[in-house]
């Protein structure tokens, strides 16, 4: 029995095989390739993980074990006892603590040399300056709203003059046995907003079924949620995280179920239906997180072609009926409200009236809008229709842009015209 090679510590051995992959070219490695610099680059790069839940735990573990050294993680949630079956970085004693913090500490302890910085907050709490520091963003989110927000932020950050403002976004998502991994190169390839139709809106039961012929325990819970709550208003505002509120809904649903001889209404089912929790399967999270992590490794080192460019950018995985995976190119949409219209610079005189600005759109070669409606975020400047809004905003036409309407240099405005039903325009005002 001869002893194996002895390393000063176990650490270099840990990276031995990883280094073979990231420093040596393979048959598909794009040329030119310099393995030495690839590995060094990876050591220095900063990567952001959004979400420290089911996918997030897997992502953090995988990324750390793939040699990423500087990872940040954002999650606003705290650990619930029901997370423990699959969010394996958490223990019972962690219940109530922040997910990002506990996950970061756990992985740092297990993988020597990795630094993980937790942020116990919402992604919306940070601005572009924060996101600009990363070279890569990996998302493991369960909310479409959060996905749309980070997507729009990363697309808006792209400055055509500055290459490193393009932050590749790797997005993973799972629902039961199904999942997807996709890579978005902001402004270059199809973005999450372009792909919104890939998410089926939540399956809803017709309101009249809930009201008159419930057949399933879920129908009774939805009835309590959308009909009984509104009628009786037991609390001013429904808080889905308040056990007292869920208990109220549970009891209402239970009575309703008894009335219709339906069994199966429980407290946890009530919580699941109300919070729209799709049962998460730990192994689906593993599959998807692993795919996302490998793409991150390949994007960072270029050791092999990756998902996202020039063709395929979307991998769907379905385990509902045996196993099926399909990788394809989701096309960028010209009329995408996020990436289809990058805000063009519009040189205007701040002393112009809004009428002058509106008229100018008719003659601009890139727009040629005869009936433009104009809004800034949170401020309706002029709408051609509907008539009531036209009347309300008409007085604005006489006001000047800066002084009268309070617009500022660099402000973004959205312009639509019924003649261009599918296109909208965004402009960034540049004052002369």
């Amino acid at each position, binding site marked *: 029995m001869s002893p194996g090679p002895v390393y000063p510590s176990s650490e270099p051995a840990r990276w031995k095989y990883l280094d073979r992959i990231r420093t040596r070219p393979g048959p598909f490695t*794009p040329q030119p390739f310099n393995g030495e610099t690839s590995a060094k680059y990876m050591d220095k790069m900063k990567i952001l993980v959004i979400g420290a839940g089911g996918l997030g735990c897997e992502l953090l573990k995988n990324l750390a074990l793939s040699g990423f050294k500087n990872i940040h993680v954002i999650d606003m949630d705290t650990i619930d006892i029901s997370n423990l079956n699959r969010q394996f970085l958490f223990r019972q004693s962690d219940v109530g603590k922040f997910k990002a913090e506990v996950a970061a500490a756990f992985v740092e302890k297990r993988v020597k040399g990795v630094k993980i910085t937790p942020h116990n907050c919402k992604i919306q709490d940070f601005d572009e300056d924060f996101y600009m520091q990363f070279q890569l963003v990996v998302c493991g989110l369960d909310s479409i*709203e959060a996905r749309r927000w980070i997507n729009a932020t990363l697309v808006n950050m792209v400055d*055509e003059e500055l290459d490193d403002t393009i932050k590749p976004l790797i997005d993973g998502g799972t629902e039961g046995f199904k999942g997807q991994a996709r890579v978005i190169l902001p402004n270059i390839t199809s973005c999450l907003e372009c792909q919104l139709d890939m998410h089926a809106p939540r399956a809803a039961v017709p309101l009249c079924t809930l009201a008159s012929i419930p057949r399933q325990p879920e129908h009774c819970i939805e009835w309590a949620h959308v009909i009984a709550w509104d009628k009786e208003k037991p609390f001013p505002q429904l808080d889905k995280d308040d056990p007292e509120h869920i208990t109220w809904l549970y009891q209402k649903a239970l009575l309703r179920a008894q009335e219709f001889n339906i069994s199966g209404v429980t407290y946890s089912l009530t919580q699941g239906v109300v919070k729209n929790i799709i049962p998460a399967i730990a192994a689906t999270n593993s599959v998807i997180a692993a795919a996302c992590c490998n793409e991150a490794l390949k*994007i960072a080192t270029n050791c092999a072609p990756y998902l996202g460019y020039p063709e395929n950018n979307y991998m769907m995985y379905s385990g509902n009926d045996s196993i099926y995976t399909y990788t394809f190119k989701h096309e960028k949409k010209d009329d995408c409200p996020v990436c289809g219209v990058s805000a063009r610079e519009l040189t205007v005189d701040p002393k112009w009236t809004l009428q002058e600005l509106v008229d100018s759109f008719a003659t601009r070669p890139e727009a040629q809008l005869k009936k433009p*409606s104009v809004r800034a*975020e949170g401020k309706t400047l002029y709408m051609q229709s509907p008539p009531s809004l036209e009347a309300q905003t008409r007085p604005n036409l006489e006001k000047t842009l800066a002084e009268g309407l309070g617009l500022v*240099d*660099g402000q973004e405005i*959205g312009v*639509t015209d019924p003649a261009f039903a599918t296109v909208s325009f965004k402009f960034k005002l540049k004052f002369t």
Partner: protein
Amino acid sequence: MLKIWSMKKEQQKAENSDGGAAGGAAGGPKKKKVTAAQLRVQKDLNELSLGTTMRTDFPDPDNILSFILYIEPDEGMYKGGRFSFTFNITPNFPHEPPKVQCREKIYHPNIDLEGKVCLNILREDWKPVLNLNAVIVGLQFLFLEPNASDPLNKEAAEDLRNNREMFKRSVRSAMMGGSVRGEGFDRVAI
């Protein structure tokens, strides 16, 4: 390290017809960006065809995500009434449908006494490709063709199914502010 940069250049070469590039120097205070949901609602509002029977009211014109729609049907059993609906659109539009509620207590098989509306495209059949105009057309249709097979007000649906003439009379009396089956209704007749 990322080869995106060179790809980007290639792509630009291919598209170099494009005129004014966005960008400009960084720095300065952060300006609010126009969000996708807002831009989409702006477009949808431009495309509303209200005709002579509908109009809108925006309590705050700067907030286009919240408004009231008035419908005055010019035919059918609900002719002569004025019905109003609140529209509340979430930042997740058009992934989520707008939330629509009738502001008056009315006698209608597909609208309950709290104003909830049973219209398929407001719930189970909503798709992001649908727009606000599809919703107002749907609402208008509910007044022309109340539907007894999708009841939200079960009593009204029963009445419609059992005796159409009597249902019509009940609609008239409810619109005048009277009671039907012991339930009082808001006066909506104009």
